[in-house]
């Protein structure tokens, strides 16, 4: 007896992938520089963006949508809602995604990170009043980035060529698959059905979009104003940021000793 329970669907990823493939075949691929120019070839390889013409089309589409919808919302949100309230909302949203993070930490075989995620979920959901207050950070379990894309990276999966997808923005085949996994492993995706549940689901995803957009408001404005080629700048920033998140996860060997416990001697 299976309930049709999934309350909210982002545009399905296979559909997105199909759209990208179709658009790619229409728009063509970036032309590879001639082999007698090794430095240009090295640059082409480094950019790893064979679908650049298509990606740029989607970048323009997203940019247009952002200018008329998401950015004004983020500006209004930042203007109307004080920072303290915004950070509490951010805490609640982060706490809601914690089960998926815990799952990713476990699959990535990072027991200490998984322990931190578990404690963050338990402490912040109870003492932190449904995630409003980030008590866990003060108690010695600080937040860290983890998602299924990072887990796949730690498994050794290469990121693949750069993608710029509608709605999702800058990503890669690996990270886009990871996003799909995170939506699928999110318990809230599977809980209940009905008008209330689905409207809560929409609210949550909408708030996540606004919260994320607000956090990069100044940076993105700066990029658009100062970069000669904002698309290439965002591509570079996305890659570097992902790599640093992955490196941090890989080299994270901290002991998860809570702040109130006897601290281990430092070497």
């Amino acid at each position, binding site marked *: 007896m299976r309930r049709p329970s999934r309350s909210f669907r982002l545009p399905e990823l296979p559909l997105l992938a199909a759209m990208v493939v179709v658009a790619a075949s229409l728009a063509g691929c970036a032309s590879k520089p001639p082999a007698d120019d090794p*430095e*240009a070839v090295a*640059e082409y390889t480094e*950019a790893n963006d064979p679908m650049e013409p298509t990606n740029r089309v989607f970048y323009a589409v997203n940019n247009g949508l952002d200018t008329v919808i998401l950015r004004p919302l983020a500006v209004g949100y930042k203007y109307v809602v004080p*920072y303290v309230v915004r*950070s509490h909302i951010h805490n609640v949203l982060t706490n809601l995604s914690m089960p998926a993070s815990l799952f990713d930490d476990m699959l990535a075989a990072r027991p200490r990170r998984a322990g931190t995620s578990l404690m963050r979920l338990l402490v912040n959901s109870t003492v932190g009043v449904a995630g409003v207050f980030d008590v866990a950070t003060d108690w010695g379990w600080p937040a860290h980035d983890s998602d299924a894309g990072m887990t796949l990276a730690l498994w050794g999966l290469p990121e693949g060529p750069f993608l710029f997808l509608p709605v999702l923005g800058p990503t890669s085949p690996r990270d886009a698959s990871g996003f799909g996994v995170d939506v699928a492993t999110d318990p809230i995706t599977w809980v209940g059905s009905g008008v209330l549940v689905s409207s809560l689901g929409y609210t949550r995803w909408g708030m996540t979009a606004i919260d994320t957009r607000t*956090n990069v408001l*100044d940076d993105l404005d*700066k990029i658009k*104003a*100062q*970069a*000669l*080629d904002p*698309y*290439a*700048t965002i*591509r*570079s*920033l996305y890659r*570097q*940021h992902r*790599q*640093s*998140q992955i*490196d*941090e996860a890989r080299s994270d060997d901290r002991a998860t000793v809570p702040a109130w416990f006897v601290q281990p001697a430092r070497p």
Partner: protein
Amino acid sequence: MLTRRILLWSGTAALAMMGLPRSPARAQSLEQATAFIEQAMKDLSFVVNGPDPMADKQRKLQAIIDRTVDVNDVARFCLGRFWRAASPAQQSEYLALFHRVLMINITSKVGEYQGVTFTIGRAQPREGAVVVSSIVNRPGNPPNKVDWLVSFDTGSPKIIDVVAEGTSLRLTQRSDYSAYLAHNNNSVQALIDALKQQATQPS
């Protein structure tokens, strides 16, 4: 018996190596880089949070940047392989423009940094330079992890890169320029013309 003697010797050698102090020059440059960044951050927050009118702040900020950042080195890095393709006249024009655009980009945002505070973290050697990590706190914004790459190539410590949340300023700038060049027939002159526009239209 030979094996035992070899074992004994190698054991002694290993012990001796472990007991050796770490290279004093390296430890000193780590300390020096940390002190340098600490002072630069102090100067910077003093000007940004001070009572001066905006124009004075911008002028003082410019002086600090000129003193602490190896702008020419950053500029050459950002042009990458095209530096050699440029004529000497283009090179000097590019350096001057890069300097001016960088100053505009930094000083035009000085108001946003009101109330900024820093915490300096640890220093580590990286690629012949030293990385000094720090946390930058701006009121109304989540804290940012910022690493400063300090080089001693000119004899005195100079900042050659800023890495914010894992993203390097000079690497990002280089991808921006190289993408622009790729779409403009790899013409350095086109880049110089674009920079000229940026230098005359402060954002």
